[in-house]
């Protein structure tokens, strides 16, 4: 399969009031079409920065990013983004928020309605289409955000710690939801997290990033069958991956 996203010596240095902050890089990496890649690293190592650069929302200081061979130098509209918080708007219902994705693109929401409902039903929100975001729990809001990121069927999905703000129980449930969504229509996914077992459960490949300035420390291919349900997660292989990655962070003194 061919590459979907490629990073060539990508580096970001922020100009802050207290002088330049070297956030990440230089990083070289490629993500194949349909591959689920996790970026795993401690807080502040530049993961969000990387996501924004891939989306074309932030220019790299050095190096370049290519998507399907084309240099990213303006905001990409063919990506779906999920942020750490749901970022829904209160003046629209759950369904309305999902449809906002296509309405903003100038597309006819009526044509996407069925697909939106289908997506929402697949994550258990079928009965909440008409509710407003503030009437939902945090986990339900984040699921709505997943659906919004997928509605326009983007070939690339960027997720910046989408489960970060949720409690452990909800995280586990949403992980399964995410896995299901991804198995339903494989896309190139760049998934940011600092939860090791989350990365192992979801990813084809885990990219371990060092503390700031973030560099690619190691890439680990996770060779386990999907869906990685409860049994798989208890298997020695799964736990082996988790331990290997934990060891890396131990060495850095992060955990």
């Amino acid at each position, binding site marked *: 399969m061919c590459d979907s996203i490629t990073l060539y010596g990508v580096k970001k240095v922020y100009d802050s009031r207290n002088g330049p902050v070297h956030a990440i890089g230089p990083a070289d990496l490629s993500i194949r079409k349909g591959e689920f890649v996790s970026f795993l690293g401690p807080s502040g190592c530049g993961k969000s920065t990387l996501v924004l650069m891939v*989306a074309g929302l932030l220019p790299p200081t050095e190096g370049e990013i290519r998507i399907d061979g084309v240099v990213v130098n303006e905001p990409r509209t063919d990506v779906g983004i999920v942020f750490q918080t749901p*970022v829904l708007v209160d003046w629209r219902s759950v369904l309305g928020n999902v449809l906002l*994705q296509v309405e903003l*693109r100038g597309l006819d929401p009526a044509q996407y309605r069925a697909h939106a409902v289908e997506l929402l039903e697949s994550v258990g929100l079928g009965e909440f289409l008409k509710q407003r975001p*503030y009437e939902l729990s945090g986990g339900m809001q984040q699921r709505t955000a997943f659906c919004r990121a997928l509605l326009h069927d983007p070939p690339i999905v960027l997720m910046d710690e989408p489960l970060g703000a949720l409690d452990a129980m909800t995280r586990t449930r949403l992980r399964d939801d995410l896995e299901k969504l991804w198995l339903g229509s494989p896309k190139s996914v760049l998934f940011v997290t600092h939860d090791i077992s989350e990365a192992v459960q979801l990813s084809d490949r885990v990219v371990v990033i060092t503390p700031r300035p973030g560099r690619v420390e190691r890439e680990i291919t996770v060779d386990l069958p999907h869906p990685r349900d409860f049994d798989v997660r208890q298997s020695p292989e799964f736990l082996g991956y988790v331990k290997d990655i934990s060891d890396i962070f131990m060495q850095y003194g992060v955990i």
Partner: protein
Amino acid sequence: MAAPIPFDTERYSQIGGIFAKLGARVKASRTFLLATVVFVVGWELVVYLFEIPSYLLPSPSNIAVEFYQNFTIIWRSTLVTAYETFAGFFFALALGIPFSLGVAFYRPLRNTIYPATVALQLVPKIALAPLMITWFGFGLTSKILIVFLLCFFPILLNGILGFSSLGTELTYFLTSTGARSKTGFLKVRMPAALPQLFVGIKWAAINATVGATTGEWVGGDAGLGYLIKFTSGDLRINFAFAAIVTLSLLGLFLFYLVVLVERQLIPWHVSQRSTSGMV
């Protein structure tokens, strides 16, 4: 899995909701009504018991009688003041909102006209009132301009704040859809700015009657402000109080008109979700 909620059930619960809301509203306004009655009766009693002369503080019943006797002139004055108030207020709305948009999204405006407006705002409006009269005469124009001056700034300031406070991540989302700026404005930026904008509009609504009255006071021959000045000068305090009460009612009317529109436009906002919230 997820069984769709039958249409009529939802409808039914909606109607139930309306009744519940109405009930809460009636309850809330009953408390308010009770407080008002207690206040008016208390006032009446204090004036009666302490035998306060009516040239110091007339009793509500005296004011009511005076209001009834002079209804025609009070009504005519009210129309004048109301005209000035509403004209200046809507003029400020019509200019303030586009202006705040311009300042929020267009740097040259932010660097030129905005500081100039702030500087103008630092001058007490009451000091400008005689100037307005000199420039624009004793008629309606000068009053409308004073009202405008008092209403424009709160709308501008809160509009700017509203339009430039879209969250970083929501902005990223908006950008990533490649939305045309008009679409993005109508579907995201405008609704997101409305709650803050309404803070300014309510503030302006309160200022509006103050502006009209000030104008009439400084130089005018009609309106409630003029009537108050004239009658209190003649020591007809009952009459003056009747005009003052009418003026307050006019101010309240405009304010609640804005609150009503706000309720319709942003029922989703935190401040509007329960009837126990602030107005």
